[in-house]
């Protein structure tokens, strides 16, 4: 394959990696704080897409980028409610229980979303033009998606490391019993963390809706991708997730120049399994 495609593919992959990373941050935050692998992650991403779509095509014709703000708020509320309905009772149970509890939410979301929206493909038609230098074309929508991803990621950092609430969340993640002894209401913090994680997933879905067409089942692909990214960055490590997203995006862009595109997922899964075996703490983590 031609090397001409290398630079533009690398840039495209890199940019998309930020959005993948954002979705994965939600997943990894939830795991880090409460040791739960959230199987409702994919459908929640799809919900984020439909928040933007519904507002955009509705009578008000809300700008998709305002829709992202709506997705952020709705995601937070949805996550907190989901925590109390599906997880609060079983938060200390073995992982199988929480896997199935979040999977049941997955089924419910998909069940409702497919009857409301059907599986017809949808798209949010938004264009912000593009800038071309040589054979590199950078799309406005992709550039804005990167910016939003960076802003949201920075916001998460501010929240976790610069606020009292963030400190409490981190305390609960580190040692729940000790945090409770310090007077922290751990249930509230767990619910909030789940809400933030869900909100991140919805925002990434909202961003993806401005880039690609989708339907209610579209979240599944991004969910599996998030698993790969989260493992790459180290389970429970949000910085790692963002970095993992960028690595995966770059990998997808660059390797396609050298190997058939349909083999790229094999490479991704092999890396995924190897990381789990050799460095389960992720690329950034300490050696196992």
């Amino acid at each position, binding site marked *: 394959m031609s090397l001409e495609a290398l630079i533009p593919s690398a840039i495209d992959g890199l940019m998309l990696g930020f959005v993948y990373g954002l979705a994965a941050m939600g997943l990894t935050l939830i795991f880090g704080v409460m040791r739960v692998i959230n199987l409702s992650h994919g459908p929640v991403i799809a919900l984020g897409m439909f928040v933007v779509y519904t507002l955009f095509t509705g009578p008000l014709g809300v700008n998709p980028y305002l829709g992202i703000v709506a997705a952020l708020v709705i995601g937070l509320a949805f996550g907190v409610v989901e925590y109390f309905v599906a997880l609060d009772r079983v938060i200390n149970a073995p992982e199988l229980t929480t896997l199935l509890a979040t999977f049941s939410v997955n089924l419910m979301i998909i069940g409702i979303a497919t009857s409301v929206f059907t599986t017809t493909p949808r798209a949010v038609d938004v264009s912000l033009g593009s800038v071309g230098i040589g054979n590199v074309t950078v799309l406005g929508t992709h550039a804005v998606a990167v910016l939003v991803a960076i802003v949201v990621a920075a916001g998460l950092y501010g929240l976790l490391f610069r606020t009292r609430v963030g400190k409490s969340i981190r305390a609960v993640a580190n040692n729940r019993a000790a945090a409770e002894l310090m007077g922290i209401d751990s249930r509230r913090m767990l619910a909030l963390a789940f809400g933030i994680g869900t909100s991140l997933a919805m925002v990434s879905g909202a961003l993806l809706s401005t880039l690609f067409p989708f339907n209610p*089942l579209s979240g599944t692909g991004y969910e599996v991708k998030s698993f790969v990214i989260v493992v790459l960055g180290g389970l429970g490590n949000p910085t790692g997730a963002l970095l993992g997203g960028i690595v995966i995006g770059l990998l997808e862009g660059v390797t*396609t120049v050298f190997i058939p595109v349909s083999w790229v997922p094999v490479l991704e899964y092999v890396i995924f399994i190897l990381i789990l075996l050799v460095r389960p703490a992720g690329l950034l983590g300490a050696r196992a």
Partner: protein
Amino acid sequence: MRPTRIVAIAIVGLVAAACGGTTTPQASGAPTAGGSAAPAVSKALNIGFTNSQTGAQQVASTKQTEGIKLWVDQVTKAGGIKLKDGTVLMPKVTFYDDGSATDRVQQLYTKLINDDKVDVLLSPYSSSLVKAAAVVSEQNGKVMITAGGADDATMEQGFTNIYQVYSPGSKYLTGAIDLMLKLDPSIKKVAIVNEKDSFSVSVVTAAKPYAESKGLQVVVNQGYDTGTTDFAPFINQIVAAAPDAIIGGGHLVDGTAFAKALKEKNVSARFVALLVAPPEPTFADIGDAANFTVGPSQWEIPVKYNEAAAKALNIPFYGITSDSFTSAYRAMFNSAPSYHSAGGFAAGLILQRALEDAGSTDPAKLRASLDKTDVMTFFGRTKFSTDAKTHGKQVAHDMVYIQWQKGSDGKLAAQVVWPTEAKTAEAQLRK
């Protein structure tokens, strides 16, 4: 025991109690042989099939079922299917939701044949579900008319009871290549990018050698995993190879994403034809990116297959015209028919004609009649292969090609551009 636990168990128990009944098939259509004073012997014609009310195939499958329902409605209003010996068959359809799952399809077709005692079968929607249903009807020696399954492989399994109304997948893009070369004979380099699934791969397996036989050079040939929406890697390779035309695609979401990416990256190919996605109305959601995209379709509203067209081919015309199908469909369902709807209705028509011709519901007689069928309906020409290897495969139906074009009002519309007899607009090169 905690009260919550008791409540939970009570709920489980309630659900279990509510579930206690036997499964109820959804029946519609005429009541079975009633006590009216009809002199002729009236018999119920039991027709069975499954559809996907849930799962990935939900949208197209619902359209197909509506087509079948309209056919049943029309036959019922016309007083049933009258056979030569005076028997009148009143159609009664039984169908279940297969949830777009193959194992479910096999189980339900067995149920339809053995419990519901259906006389003939129609098909579910989508190639893999049709395959699964075909195996069961073949095992039980029941005739099945399929719509919604275009896979070539299904019809190369040595079946004897399965008849395909759709044009097979191998024809989906070969016609697009003909159209393209007619439009611009100077096109030389073509890129093929397709989904790596059973259907799309078999389409491309036929299209690639066909393109090469026409002197075209395939400069990019790549497959992508099901569910792909990021096409940037392909686009960059395509840009590097600078093809004159791009063909491929797969299903709905990926095809739409591909078209969108081609526009965003200003790919300059003069001709783009994609599978499955373009005939879908929501394809226009991507706005200008839809413009000039060509897509194969089994049928479109403006298509004009009529008495005259049939006469020109020296074959009979059967059933209603495209116009009356469309208006009846709109009246009944309050929406425009898609090619899936037309396929469902056409499967009914072909069955009806075979029953009248055979004068019986006996599978052997039906098969004999279907084997020699060569007829034109509003859906196009229908003729089945009688070769042992490909028995039942559709050999005469032609694909229709649509192209999204921006009208003088600035609105996007899907225009029929091929075949020439039915076109609503001239095909155009991409600009």
